[in-house]
């Protein structure tokens, strides 16, 4: 019984063309060339090669899934077709490049690119390209034929190899500074020093070569990760909904949280100075993400001008503390409550006129608000107070006793403390009367009002709370740079924060952390990526919406009713009726 028959060959050809198009795009924007120096497995293949070959792999896999069930031979053939076509399209690009000067239009269509695509063997290398593409296609399709558990394990292992290979430079930087740190260890910790030094040597000399993973260690790691994933996928799935915890689970959870807290406290020491700056940036975005998560994730109010509150927090801190302007000359801690108050008031002021707006209209108006704040900061009119294009310099720094928190590492702890408080507040609010009111407004505003929820107060509360968190991020940011400039308050900040929430999972608090690490840390960690940050964001967002719209770490629902099944029948008045209606 065919409801809709799919022709497998048509699908395969289509997938091949798509794969080719994606690969050509990656080639022409220069990503392939930029990553061609980065070996994943030393001497075997580079990230550049991965970029122009992986599209065939992925599309062959998805095609196999789409046309299933097919005989194994057909699936493999479809993969082959997809791979051949995908690489043929790229071969076409190389040939075209020989005839026409593509560089006039595509600056990256350089001889270097063609050399990479032909594996450095000129035109005969095109055959190699076709061969590699077909292998990719066949392997991608065949992986789908494996039992699901095995297939998922293989894919995960491949992904890890890719990641570990990419991170080679980082890991070696980090481990190198461990060795330096051990020199400062006291004598009685000498054994730890030896341990750390040999671990570092092991990682740098045995696992990694001067570039990328060593082939043998890549194979061993592949098998280890694959086996681990295979074991993990075999375990029963953990329910997504969490319930009241048993004593043992509670202990586990406390230990787990304690472990995570300890890890975060030690993180700057483990990673070294090089990463402190990146960690601070991540912290900044986590703070803003937690705030916007309340506005967008909980209350469903799409705010595209979120950077405004961040700017107001930063500028308020500047105006209140900078001796250059000389209005108040407060210290950081004295100024903090006033700066936060200013952002809350701004949140309410923005909230008031847009109470009646929904959806798209709300997004446009908030967008405008963000721009207005930026333009005001930039304007000549407010220059005497806000410094115009020059911004504000010599902003007060936070101190504890006589210690000035001015290094990136010190500020990391300031961020950590702020995040701890803000995450706690967000977590508590989520399961409170107010949190439910926010969610009700998100789901259906009219009905929420008919449930006795005052939409004015509730929405303003969401805006004010969101503004407060963002303002806090702004004040710490100002203290971190000792200065604020209008150009750091641009629209892209709002978009970044929104993207990280979407990628992490709307309304999910751990999702904010995951999203911030993926979006903010990852491009900083891989320098080659920095240039393609927004291309990668866009691709990631599209891919996420197609395959995992709920985000990387979606919101968990608490089990509330389950409680009674455990025999804890609550005291108090008996239930009005016990039988079910309609009996």
């Amino acid at each position, binding site marked *: 019984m065919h409801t809709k028959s799919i022709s497998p060959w048509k699908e395969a050809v289509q997938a091949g063309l798509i794969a080719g198009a994606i690969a050509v795009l990656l080639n022409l924007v220069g990503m392939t060339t930029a990553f061609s120096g980065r070996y994943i497995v030393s001497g075997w293949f580079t990230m550049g090669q991965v970029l122009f070959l992986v599209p065939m792999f992925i599309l062959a896999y998805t095609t196999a899934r789409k046309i299933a069930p097919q005989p194994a031979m057909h699936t493999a053939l479809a993969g082959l077709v997809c791979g051949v076509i995908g690489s043929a399209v790229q071969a076409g690009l190389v040939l075209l490049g020989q005839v026409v000067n593509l560089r006039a239009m595509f600056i990256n269509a350089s001889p270097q690119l063609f050399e990479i695509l032909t594996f450095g063997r000129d035109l005969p290398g095109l055959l190699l390209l076709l061969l590699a593409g077909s292998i990719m296609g066949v392997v991608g399709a065949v992986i789908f034929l494996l039992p699901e558990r095995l297939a998922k394990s293989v894919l995960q292992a491949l992904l890890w190899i890719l990641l570990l290979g990419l991170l080679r430079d980082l890991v070696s930087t980090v481990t190198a500074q461990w060795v330096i740190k051990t020199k400062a260890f006291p004598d009685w910790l000498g054994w730890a020093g030896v341990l750390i030094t040999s671990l570092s040597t092991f990682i740098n000399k045995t696992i990694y070569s001067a570039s990328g993973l060593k082939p043998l260690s890549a194979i061993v790691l592949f098998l280890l990760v694959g086996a681990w994933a295979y074991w993990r996928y075999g375990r029963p799935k953990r329910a997504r909904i969490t319930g009241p915890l048993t004593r043992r689970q509670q202990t586990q959870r406390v230990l787990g949280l304690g472990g995570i807290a300890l890890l975060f406290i030690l993180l700057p020491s483990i990673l070294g100075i090089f990463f402190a700056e990146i960690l601070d940036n991540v912290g900044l975005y986590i703070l803003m993400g937690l705030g916007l998560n309340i506005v967008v994730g909980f209350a469903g109010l799409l705010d595209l001008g979120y950077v405004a509150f961040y700017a107001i927090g930063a500028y308020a801190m500047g105006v209140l503390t900078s001796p250059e302007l000389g209005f108040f000359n407060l210290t950081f801690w004295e100024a903090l409550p006033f700066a936060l108050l200013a952002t809350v008031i701004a949140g309410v002021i923005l909230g008031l006129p847009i109470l009646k707006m929904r959806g798209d209209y709300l997004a446009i108006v908030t967008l405008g608000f963000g721009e207005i704040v930026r333009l005001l900061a930039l304007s000549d009119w407010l220059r005497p107070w806000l410094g115009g294009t020059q911004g504000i310099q010599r902003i007060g720094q936070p101190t504890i006793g006589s210690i000035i928190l001015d290094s990136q590492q010190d500020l990391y702890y300031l961020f950590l403390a702020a995040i701890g408080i803000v995450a706690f507040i967000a977590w508590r609010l989520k399961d409170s009367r107010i949190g439910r009111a926010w969610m*009700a407004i998100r789901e259906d505003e009219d009905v929420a009002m008919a449930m006795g929820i005052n939409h004015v107060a509730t929405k303003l509360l969401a805006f004010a709370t969101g503004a407060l968190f963002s303002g806090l991020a702004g004040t710490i940011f100002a203290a971190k740079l000792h200065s604020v400039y209008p150009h750091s308050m641009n629209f892209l900040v709002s978009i970044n924060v929104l993207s990280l929430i979407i990628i992490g999972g709307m309304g999910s608090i751990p999702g904010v952390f995951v999203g911030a690490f993926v979006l903010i840390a990852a491009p900083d960690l891989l320098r080659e990526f920095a240039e393609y940050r927004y291309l990668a964001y866009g691709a990631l967002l599209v891919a996420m919406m197609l395959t995992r719209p709920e985000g990387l770490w979606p919101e968990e629902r608490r089990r509330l009713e389950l409680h009674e099944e455990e025999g804890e029948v609550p005291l108090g008045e008996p239930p009005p009726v016990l039988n079910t209606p309609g009996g």
Partner: protein
Amino acid sequence: MAEVLVSKKLTKRFGGLEALSRIDLEVQENSIQSIIGPNGAGKTTFFNCVTGFYTPEEGEIFFYTHNLTGLSPDRVTKLGVARTYQNIRLFKNMTVVENILVGMHPHMKAGLIQGILRDRATRREEQESLEEARRLLRFVGLRGRGDMMAMNLPYGEQRRLEIARAVASRPKLLLLDEPTAGMNPSETQDMVHFIRRLRDELGITILLIEHQMRVVMNISELITVLDFGEKIAEGTPAQIQKDTRVIEAYLGRGAASGLGQQQSALAG
């Protein structure tokens, strides 16, 4: 008996169209009363005026001694009027229990600060509300469904959840907009039984809009008939079944002559 709801010369216009014109209506305490009428007669508009979604152009609505005219929906709910919707409007991405907890919003107290600090009183309030929600779930026959997402409930249970959510606000008057729409005969029978229990066991006065004549005639103590925004008849089920104007409104003027048949049509 006291009047729970009184509307006096209630008029609502949309541009040139008079959706409700000078409607007088009284609902007695502890009664079950229905509003019927052909499509577009103004039944749901009447509900929207009572619950504060629309502001009437003329006339007044009283709930006991409170004047509801022009109040916002949340104020009306806080006074003790709850409603359901013709097309079910649950908070789809929240769990069943959470839906009911939202319904309890008006008589819970915890604000932002209490929500963050979660002090003893707030914890107790949450605990008690949760217990009440569970009792309510048992009452409406949704025991064990509490942790499902509302959108994953079957249709009939969504209707019940919507009523449970309305009941959670501890209303004195409940407005039900076509509670049996889309239900099969046995589900409809259950719903009729259930509505009676709401009145008998919880003491809630009920005003409902209904299209299924069998339900209306079976359940109502008083029926009000609207047609083109006007009240054309009011009386007990027996009186309404005999009323020529009602039969005209439903079946057209010509049909009113063959009265015998139409009576049976209205009786369902």
